[in-house]
């Protein structure tokens, strides 16, 4: 046991004496949360749009006012003819044009039916889609209000309710994603690198010619990173609750428990990488390309897995982060209990044990 603690102490010395390692370990999670929270948001605010109002009546004026007052849109320009729309889009300042036909109010009054055209700049399809949805929602809202006033028959009333995240905040989906990413980077890459570093500097040679069991060397390497990951989990959760306003709807204890499970899985993966690579560059490369990219791409955090072709959907199942992402979303945002996530937890536990056993089996007790 004394051997073990002296190993852990040594490992802490390595980490604490290297400012770069410290910066990556503790600074990166905070930086990522802030970058994702404020810069890389997929919410659309204050988009500049133009209006071509061919009708200029009570209804269009009311609608335009309503659109302008929403926080999503800023009406930049009023256009006078249809031909100028194309030129407006080409300047790139305008994201969408709302076109009211002639006699909008009359159509609405007499036929109970009127048309609005939304032309969006779909060179960025996501933004275009979002803007069209926002605008439709505002128009629907207006329609509902006048419908209520008049009590006209035969109006179809569509009600959309956004569950768990009524404001459609991006933070709800990326906080679990960033957690998965940070833990993967810290645990997998850093542990893989520190073990391989001992091989590179030759200290592993001396450690091997000592009575210490290889298992002890490997576990002692992982302990400091487990502790640091817990600090990271806490700081990510605090930032998301207090700075980004993402609530923790489920049990905090359960959330921390599954995070530790995922940390252990990542550590086991790191150990596995370290026992099959011989240089720090190789370890870093495998961690980044082999793990970090799939974590970002295939965990469902950036791109929905449901939309992927079948082969990618199958591959996504071997990405540990996919399961962790699902669990964290369920626990943190939906507030479900263990009974609804046990399957995912089981999969992660299985992966963890698999990687751990494999890495211990692959651990070289000799140099070659």
């Amino acid at each position, binding site marked *: 046991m*004394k*051997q073990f603690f*002296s*190993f852990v102490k*040594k490992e802490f*010395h*390595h980490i604490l*004496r*290297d400012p770069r390692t410290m910066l990556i370990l503790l600074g990166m999670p905070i930086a990522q949360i802030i970058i994702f929270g404020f810069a890389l948001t997929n919410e659309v605010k204050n988009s500049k749009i133009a209006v071509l109002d061919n009708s200029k009546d009570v209804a269009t004026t009311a609608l335009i006012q309503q659109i302008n007052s929403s926080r999503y849109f800023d009406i930049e320009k009023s256009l006078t003819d249809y031909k100028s729309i194309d030129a407006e889009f080409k300047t790139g300042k305008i994201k969408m044009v709302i076109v009211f036909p002639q006699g909008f109010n009359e159509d609405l009054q007499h036929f109970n039916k009127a048309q609005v055209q939304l032309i969006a700049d779909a060179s960025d399809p996501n933004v275009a889609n979002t803007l069209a949805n926002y605008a439709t929602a505002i128009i629907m809202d207006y329609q509902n209000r006048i419908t209520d006033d008049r009590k006209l028959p035969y109006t179809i009333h569509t009600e959309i309710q956004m569950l768990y995240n009524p404001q459609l905040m991006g933070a709800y989906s990326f906080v679990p994603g960033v957690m998965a990413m940070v833990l993967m980077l810290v645990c997998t890459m850093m542990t893989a690198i520190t073990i391989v570093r001992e091989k590179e*500097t*030759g*200290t592993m*040679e*001396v*450690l*091997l*010619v*000592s*009575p*210490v069991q290889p298992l002890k060397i490997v576990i002692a390497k992982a302990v400091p990173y487990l502790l640091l990951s817990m600090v990271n989990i806490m700081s990510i959760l605090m930032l998301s609750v207090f700075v980004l306003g993402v609530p923790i709807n489920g049990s905090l204890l359960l959330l921390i428990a599954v995070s530790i499970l995922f940390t252990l899985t990542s550590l086991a993966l790191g150990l596995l990488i370290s026992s099959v690579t011989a240089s720090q560059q190789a370890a870093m490369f495998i961690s980044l390309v082999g793990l970090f990219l799939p974590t970002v791409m295939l965990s469902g955090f950036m791109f929905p897995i449901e939309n992927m072709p079948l082969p990618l959907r199958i591959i996504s199942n071997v990405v540990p982060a996919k399961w962790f992402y699902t669990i964290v979303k369920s626990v943190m945002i939906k507030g479900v209990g263990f009974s609804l996530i046990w399957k995912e937890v089981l999969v992660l536990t299985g992966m963890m044990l698999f990687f751990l056993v494999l890495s211990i089996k692959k651990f070289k*007790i*000799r*140099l*070659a």
Partner: protein
Amino acid sequence: MKPAITINNIVKFYGAKSNKTEALSGISFNVNEGELFGIIGPDGAGKTSLFRILTTLLLADEGEATVDGYDVVKYYKEIRKRAGYMPGRFSLYQDLTVEENLEFFATIFNTTIEKNYHLIKDIYIQIEPFKKRKAGKLSGGMKQKLALCCALIHKPSVLFLDEPTTGVDAVSRKEFWEMLKKLKQQNITILVSTPYMDEAGMCDRVALLQSGKILSIDTPDGIIEQFQKDLFAVRSSKMLPLLNDLKICSEVEDAYFFGAYHHVVMKHKNEEQQLKNYLSKYAGDGLEINAIRPNIEDCFMALMKNTE
């Protein structure tokens, strides 16, 4: 005396089967308990491979070896408890201080600095003023001393030192060998390798290793006695033409640079006069011809020529 290390027909290959290079080709010798045994050979002779096989870090392709009575393959765990190993490259933690390194190695061998302080005292006392300094900031000589301390702290029964004096200045090298002599008195068997022939004289016995083969095993004096031919040290102010002339002389077996002189090995005994006559044209260039006693390097050169 029972041998501390036995090596029996060890063969080691590197590389793929089609293109393999032989690092060790059937080496056998024993090292007695409490002996200071030197393996002398140039770079690439196979010294490090042999050390790694004995310290259980590599598996030999053929042959057996034992350390302290334990087989290096079957009982590798036993050997790892009782061997001290100092690799050729400085292999301590550069970001830990001198004291932390020593403490760490003491703990992983289940001992404490206090318990075996008497073993390292003479050496440690020299680096103690710098015990708060990081190991990476030490000079080459001090690094070697610290590495030796770390390899000794668990009172190993066999100590493996792979080129401990490479890259260390002449004064520190001399000090290092003095330390090894003192350690011998503690009844620790020491196997040490070096590319410096002049260090051979400090060992009890030496093995001369070249291209994976042992040229000779004997005491340093024994190896010198094997050298039966006449040897001369020759110099003049025109060294290069002198060497060329020596090389084509029919009475000369071998001639090579040796410091400020050329060493000349004669084919037959008592031919000093013939050599003097042959070199008479250099008489005006300060020619000097001295009969000398061979040293280990002369023996090594002769043995190497014989095996070619």
